[in-house]
């Protein structure tokens, strides 16, 4: 067998990535921190921390705690706000040869729309990821992602406010995610991000207080991987949109599992905390797997589980 260098490039609808690995929103800051560890141009894409119209303080500490093979967080979407992002953070990101995916959220449909409009005009943003699934904010967030009509309305509004590719990030905290994926598709989403965190809680039995100040938080990490893989597989079979799969991807094997389940691209989230080099090691590992298995195009992995 001739071992040729496989092509890792994937098409996420209108968005072409040089390889299937992006960073998950909220786990990679605005890229600066990790740029000390590797060349960000190696990445398929970078998803920013969630951006809102105005800067946000986020939730009071403690904001995170560890759980078995996972962690709970309730950052509460602390962020610099979209204007400051465009002014101070985006120019840095624009200096790398990678796709910048701006993750956004709002308290109202109008806010989603307004954030989108500003990003649409900014240079260096390649796609908008719409977070309607954050379990850690009172208004907005998950409230949109667990309501079919609100899902439609938000995605539709974003769709109309930009010509950039629109990625809907859905909540796993629903009985059946397929109708939500379907509504997002109808509203004009180009791709889906699956999954956001599961809603969880942990209590310190010594002081009998919740371990995070927000009481409940989002569960991420390897613990949730089986749930995430299942959701990707369900949506892949039922809905025509390309998927960015995430939820507990720690290494290339995990990433390949998601692609076999139906993900076109994958995101490393919590993994970057444990190993800052995780995203680049995942890229290398996918390439190795493709060579070893004689797969010349990353697209040939997608949905190839024999189920």
């Amino acid at each position: 067998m001739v071992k040729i260098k496989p092509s890792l490039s994937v098409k996420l609808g209108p968005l072409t990535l040089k390889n299937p690995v992006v960073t998950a929103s909220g786990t990679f800051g605005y890229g600066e921190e990790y740029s000390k560890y590797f060349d960000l141009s190696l990445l398929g894409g970078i998803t920013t921390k969630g951006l809102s119209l105005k800067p946000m303080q986020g939730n009071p500490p403690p904001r995170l705690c560890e759980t078995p093979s996972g962690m709970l967080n309730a950052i509460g979407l602390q962020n610099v706000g979209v204007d400051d992002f465009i002014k101070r953070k985006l120019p840095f990101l624009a200096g790398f040869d990678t796709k910048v995916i701006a993750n956004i959220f709002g308290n109202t449909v109008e806010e989603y729309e307004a954030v989108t409009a500003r990003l649409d005009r900014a240079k260096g943003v390649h796609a908008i990821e719409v977070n309607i699934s954050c379990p850690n904010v009172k208004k907005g967030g998950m409230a949109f992602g667990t309501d079919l009509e609100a899902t439609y309305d938000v995605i539709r509004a974003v769709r109309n406010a930009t010509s950039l590719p629109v990625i809907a990030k859905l909540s796993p905290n629903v009985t059946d995610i397929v109708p939500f994926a379907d509504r997002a598709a109808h509203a004009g989403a180009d791709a889906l991000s699956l999954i956001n965190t599961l809603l969880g809680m942990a209590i310190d039995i010594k002081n009998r207080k919740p371990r995070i100040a927000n009481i409940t938080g989002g569960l991420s990490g390897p613990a949730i991987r089986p749930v995430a893989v299942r959701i990707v597989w369900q949506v892949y079979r039922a809905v025509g949109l390309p998927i960015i799969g995430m939820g507990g991807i720690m290494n290339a094997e995990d990433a390949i599992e998601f692609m076999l389940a139906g993900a076109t691209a994958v995101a490393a989230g919590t993994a970057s905390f444990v190993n800052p080099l995780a995203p680049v090691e995942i890229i290398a590992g996918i390439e190795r797997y493709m060579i070893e298995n004689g797969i010349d195009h990353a697209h040939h992995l997608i949905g190839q589980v024999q189920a």
Partner: protein
Amino acid sequence: MIARIRKNEELLEGYFIVDIEAEGIGLRKAGRPAVPGQFYMLKAGPSTDPLLRRPLSLHRKLSDDSVRFLYRRAGRGTALLSRLIPGDEIDVLGPLGNGFPMPAGIKHALIVGGGIGIAPLMALADYISDERKDISAAAFIGGRSREYVLGADEFSRKGIETFTATEDGSLGKKGFITHILDEYIHEHKHKGTGGWAIYSCGPHPMLISVAAMAKKYGIKNYTSMESNMACGIGACMGCVIGVLDREHGSSVYKKVCDDGPVFDADDIVW
């Protein structure tokens, strides 16, 4: 970076020192040495349970390629670490964080530590006695009882005037170390406390009372804070504490890992 354990010893029940070795581990990116007050994120073993790295302060820089930590076996992560033996590998990130500031004009450092809080303060004492002959220092070390007053001998050996206090009176004064600190400042303050700075690390209540005292006497207080961390490098926003934003006069959330772990105690929303 993968480092190797050189030594991992239990000093007293539940308290350990570990020496680890890897090329350049004692250096920052720029090649300059790690600074006292900086910390490392360690992961012992590839299991996803425990999942996250654990932060430990630089205790002593042994060489450019070797550092020492002093740690307490608190839970599962440190328990795992305590079982590693010489030759074992450990995954390390660092040095991270800002370190203790030493602005121009500082002449006298009051080093105040409680229990395991002595860990980063030893690095500070090393630095002052090795490289800053221009600065004098006094140390105030407290603990539950005799055994838990860590590092006092070492401080004395460095020629640092060292005061101790224990809750049970088994070493030094009986009571809290902050009382001794108070007496000390009170006694010396007529000579002027300009150029004095307090460096503190230890249990939260101790830090609060040191901060209050520093404020009372108008002495700068730099304190090393703790917080649950995921990334340790400023990316997750998980480790924040409330800190006064002098510019706007309001409090903002700052990252312990990145903006800290050392803060001006005056700015902290306790």
